[in-house]
């Protein structure tokens, strides 16, 4: 459903992503790993429209979406979380999640100002859904909190809840387990699995190898912006280039 073809992005002289191609199958969990600075986040930024590619195509459900704005992509069913938190600290935690459902709600200014009954009903329903999602992501105790009162780890989960609130076709998670301990990482693993089982395609960037190896149907390894290897968990783990560049001998 998502197919990346010869994608490149450079900043001045730095080639952050170079000629990368891969395919993500519907309903699968596709991980992207690689050393720091390999270009994983840049890749996410390209795919979700935050950056415009220097060259290459991004095919999403048969349409070339390269260079499209993030909101246009969101409308086509794409959603993501951020490595550097992008939580709206001026809002409550719940409202943050509800922003995720933006596209499914009435966006008319006047209907909103008049608070038409239909708007109100949809909003209430959305509110309950959002609270439910927060619980699903393990931040249920913050349902009545402001985003500014949450700790780092909680905010990471809040972002996942917001991304899910969009009911996306594909969700891109950038290091969802960073800042979580092993037990908490286990919870996230479970959560991601459930998301994938519900039919949402997951693209995952993560440095926690246990999580990646347990979850991934397919793994793409980047190094210096280029594709280093690709394959199943077992294949990648055994690849000597990957061991040298990324995993190290003990993995």
């Amino acid at each position: 459903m998502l197919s990346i073809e010869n994608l490149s992005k450079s900043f001045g002289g730095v080639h952050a992503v170079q000629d990368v191609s891969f395919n993500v199958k519907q309903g699968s969990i596709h991980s992207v790993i690689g050393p720091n600075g390999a270009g994983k986040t840049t890749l996410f930024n390209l795919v979700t429209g935050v950056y415009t590619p220097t060259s290459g195509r991004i095919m999403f459900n048969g349409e070339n979406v390269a260079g499209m704005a993030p909101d246009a992509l969101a409308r086509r069913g794409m959603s993501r979380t951020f490595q550097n938190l992008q939580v709206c600290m001026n809002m409550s935690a719940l409202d943050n999640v509800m922003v995720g459902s933006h596209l499914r709600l009435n966006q008319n200014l006047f209907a909103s100002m008049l608070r038409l009954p239909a708007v109100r009903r949809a909003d209430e329903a959305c509110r309950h859904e959002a609270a439910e999602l927060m619980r699903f992501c393990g931040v249920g105790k913050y349902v009545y909190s402001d985003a500014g009162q949450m700790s780092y780890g909680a905010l990471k989960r809040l972002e996942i809840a917001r991304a899910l609130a969009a009911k996306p076709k594909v969700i891109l998670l950038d290091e969802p387990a960073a800042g979580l301990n092993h037990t908490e990482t286990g919870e996230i693993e479970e959560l991601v699995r459930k998301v994938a089982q519900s039919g949402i395609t997951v693209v995952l960037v993560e440095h926690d190898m246990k999580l990646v190896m347990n979850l991934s149907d397919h793994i793409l390894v980047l190094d210096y912006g280029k594709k280093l290897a690709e394959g199943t968990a077992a294949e990648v783990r055994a690849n000597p280039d990957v061991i040298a560049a990324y995993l190290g001998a003990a993995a």
Partner: protein
Amino acid sequence: MKSLNQRYAGLLVLAVILALLPVVLTNPFYIDVAIRIALNAVVVIALNLLMGYTGQISLGHAGFYGMGAYASAALTTHMNWPPILALVVGAAATGVLAFVVARPILKLKGHTLAMATLGLGIIISIAINNESQWTGGPDGIGVPAFTLFDFTIEGEKAWYAVSAALLLLMTWFALNLIDSPVGRALQAIHGSEVASRVAGVDTAKFKARVFVLSAVVASIAGSISAHYIGFITPGMAGFFHSIELVTMVVVGGMASVFGSIIGAALLTVLPQLLQTFEGWEVVVFGVILMVTMIFMPKGLVPSIAQRLRSRKPKEV
């Protein structure tokens, strides 16, 4: 989660206060002040939607206010248009102008945005100052009474009723808006523009919409104030009036609808109260402004609300 009741409780209190004021205030002068407060509050609420909620500063809103006021003055005086038509045309013209500049201007952020809106306001006020055949130039222009189908709004009582109704309506609109999907989208733009775009918010469109909305409201309030006061000068479209409006927003509280009303009330009444400090008005005003912001950095309403809440600390 803001419950329905909580929201409407505030509105109800406001309605009761507005209904009681004319009973308590026997002196027409006090009613006059109340009318000015209400009309200012309407603009300030609209500006707060833009500034406090959406996070887009405007140092040029008095320009829009002035456009409305001058459209009403010029079209009724020079063209003999009925006031309501002048008001609508003024608002429409303001809306069109705001719409045209919205996209390029709102691409700017922070201080550049402040400067660009300031520039826009200054351009408008200079145009008003210079085109004296229409606007009366720096000396100002008289505005006839507001008539609607043979009915003339006259006297403090009638004007009070009109402005109180407008304020209630605006408050209701604003409260509805901020607690709606659109309102959340606006606040999300403030919180994180990328995050909101990734969530599907067409940020450029929503910023433009709220900019136009607040400009149109300012224009309408400008028209009505012009008819009420009966005489307008370019100062009301000028930079200092813009700053005054922003100050009302911040002193009352960013992202607080009721804060806007309090801010407008305070900064409208204060100059009247300070007249006793002969010669020292400006100093005292400045000091009050600083002290308020130092002790209530989030603005009056949010800071007081926070303090009330903190009386019952809860443990994590």
